[in-house]
């Protein structure tokens, strides 16, 4: 077990392409940190630099109290779970699990005991003598996890491990990974582009964009107080409604609070925050025409045309909307739930 400390790390690829610029991040012992961001944001590069699969252009990565910049992946005492599992196709599941331990000259009896233990935890004991190609996607995923567990490393590194699974299995495995990490208490770094996965798994969430960290924090904090337009747009589904303040002010039937900071020119409204009933506290009101209703099981996503503004407002309504498409509705939300941004910097203002 160990903490991971990343200080002023840069990654520049040949041709002067900067993938990571001056990045700092402290991951404490036993924590599950999720790196999330769109493709090309540098999250995988960062993970691979921690793993030792990518060289570090500048800065320092420490695992525990040791600087690992120059160490081979195997010497860093980490284990990694890959997107396509990377199981050795010609070896049985047991041989796959044993391989790393054998290379480390772990005593035979101990290998046997650790493999059996990992297989028991992951419920893959029956598959130990099969080849990877005889397993389903979910089973392969478990074997890949098993290969990480048997090593009892200082840290687990996950590189989009669930993205090859179908939606249902993904949900299941997500829960299992979370439970497993809780019980093993191994420091983990988890990369994904799926914000839902990120929100549900993370002790702490790191949103990355263009080689930089946009925001670090607990998932709930990021959802409730996104530090930038980028985070606001990336976290939450359906995404936050963003309107130009000036346009909104001109709309008939719109009530806006006086508390909006003077610098702000964009405002954000979570689709979940909008209500059909007038609340008691100070509120914001909007009105418009229902263009489209998407029933999504227990709730409905309603797209409202605010009197001709190009972007439709998205509203999440519990249950069904009584009014049909084409009808005129009024929307309300507490003034405190409004997010204000400055378009020039993309930052939040209070």
């Amino acid at each position, binding site marked *: 077990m160990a903490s991971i400390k990343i200080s002023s790390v840069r990654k520049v690829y040949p041709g002067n392409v900067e993938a990571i610029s001056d990045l700092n991040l402290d991951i404490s012992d036993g924590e599950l940190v999720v790196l999330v961001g769109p493709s090309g944001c540098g999250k995988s590069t960062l993970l691979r630099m921690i793993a030792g699969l990518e060289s570090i252009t500048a800065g320092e990565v420490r695992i525990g109290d040791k600087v690992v910049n120059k160490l081979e992946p195997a010497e860093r005492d980490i284990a990694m779970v890959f*997107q396509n599992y990377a199981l050795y196709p010609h070896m049985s599941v047991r041989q796959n699990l044993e391989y790393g331990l054998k290379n480390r000259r772990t005593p035979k009896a101990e290998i046997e005991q650790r493999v059996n233990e990992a297989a028991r935890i992951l419920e893959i004991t029956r598959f130990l003598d099969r080849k990877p190609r005889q397993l389903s996607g979910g089973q392969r995923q478990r074997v890949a996890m098993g290969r990480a567990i048997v090593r009892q490393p200082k840290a687990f590194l996950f590189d989009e491990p669930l993205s090859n699974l179908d939606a249902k299995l993904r949900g299941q495995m997500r829960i299992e990974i979370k439970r497993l990490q809780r019980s093993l208490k191994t420091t983990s770094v988890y990369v994904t582009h799926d914000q839902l996965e990120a929100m549900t798994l993370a002790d702490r969430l790191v949103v990355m964009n263009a080689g930089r960290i946009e925001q670090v924090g607990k998932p709930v904090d990021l959802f409730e107080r996104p530090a930038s337009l980028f985070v606001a747009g990336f976290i939450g589904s359906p995404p936050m409604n963003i309107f130009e303040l000036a346009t909104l002010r001109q709309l008939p039937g719109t009530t806006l609070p006086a508390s909006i900071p003077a610098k702000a020119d964009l405002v954000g409204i979570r689709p979940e925050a909008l209500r059909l009933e007038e609340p008691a506290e100070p509120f914001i009101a909007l009105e418009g025409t229902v263009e489209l209703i998407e029933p999504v099981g227990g709730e409905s996503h309603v797209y409202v045309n605010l009197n001709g503004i190009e972007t439709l407002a998205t509203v999440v309504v519990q249950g069904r909307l009584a009014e049909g498409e084409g009808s005129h509705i009024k929307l309300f939300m507490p003034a405190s739930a409004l997010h204000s941004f400055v378009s020039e910097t993309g930052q939040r203002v209070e």
Partner: protein
Amino acid sequence: MVENRPWLDALTHLVLVVGVLIVAFPVYVAFIASTHEPSAFVRGVMPLLPGDNMVETYSRMLGEGLELAGTPPVWLMLTNSFWMAMIIAVGKIIISLLSAFAIVYFRFPLRTLAFWTIFITLMLPVEVRIMPTFAVVADLGLLNSYAGLTLPLIASATATFLFRQFFMTVPEELMEAARVDGAGPMKFFKDILVPVSITNIAALFVIMFIYGWIQYLWPLLVTTQEQFYTIVMGIKRLMAQTDREPDWNLVMATVILAMLPPVLVVLSMQRLFVKGLVETEK
């Protein structure tokens, strides 16, 4: 697709049967010839039904050869051909696996130069540079040796390229997982890469074995001692008896014996062979 055209189906099979017969015909005639006595060929037209001299012809060629034509026993030539083909196939596979591994999994100074040096050999079949190559082999004192027979043929880059192409399709993560698991380059090569390539290696082995077996011009030049004759070039010696018609039954028996091993290799490993040929050369 449902298609009911019985006459077309019949025509299809007719064409195929005729095709198979045409392809097989020369070999059939050769086999028949090998079962007759020499006197059968004096009468004018070659026979089309088997004779009764088969055992004698074959045992004579396998065991003694034809002293008159300077041909050693076929058995000896078959053994030489076998070892030549084996050394070429195995040698090519080993050196190409190593060099393709270096080219794909490492980045080092002069890598591009090394690549092109190997690449250029693709363009120079041994027939084109036959004289100077012969001179080099002679200078090195390798005439009449297995080394002289095989080394110049081992060096071609085809296998290197096929392995390179295949290695490029091996998932990156396999190597990364092995590194995380503590495997160095040679351990990865031995434990992961070679086992993963085994089908390709086998397919290539079939093709290279045949390539080695059917060589003609090169063995003709570098071997002057009977003990190093290969079967394919031996046939030519056998035919080149001046001033008289060759002993047809003996020549054709040798021809059949020369064809048999590689044809059996192709037929017994048909799936691998077809896969290796079609998938790798495309």
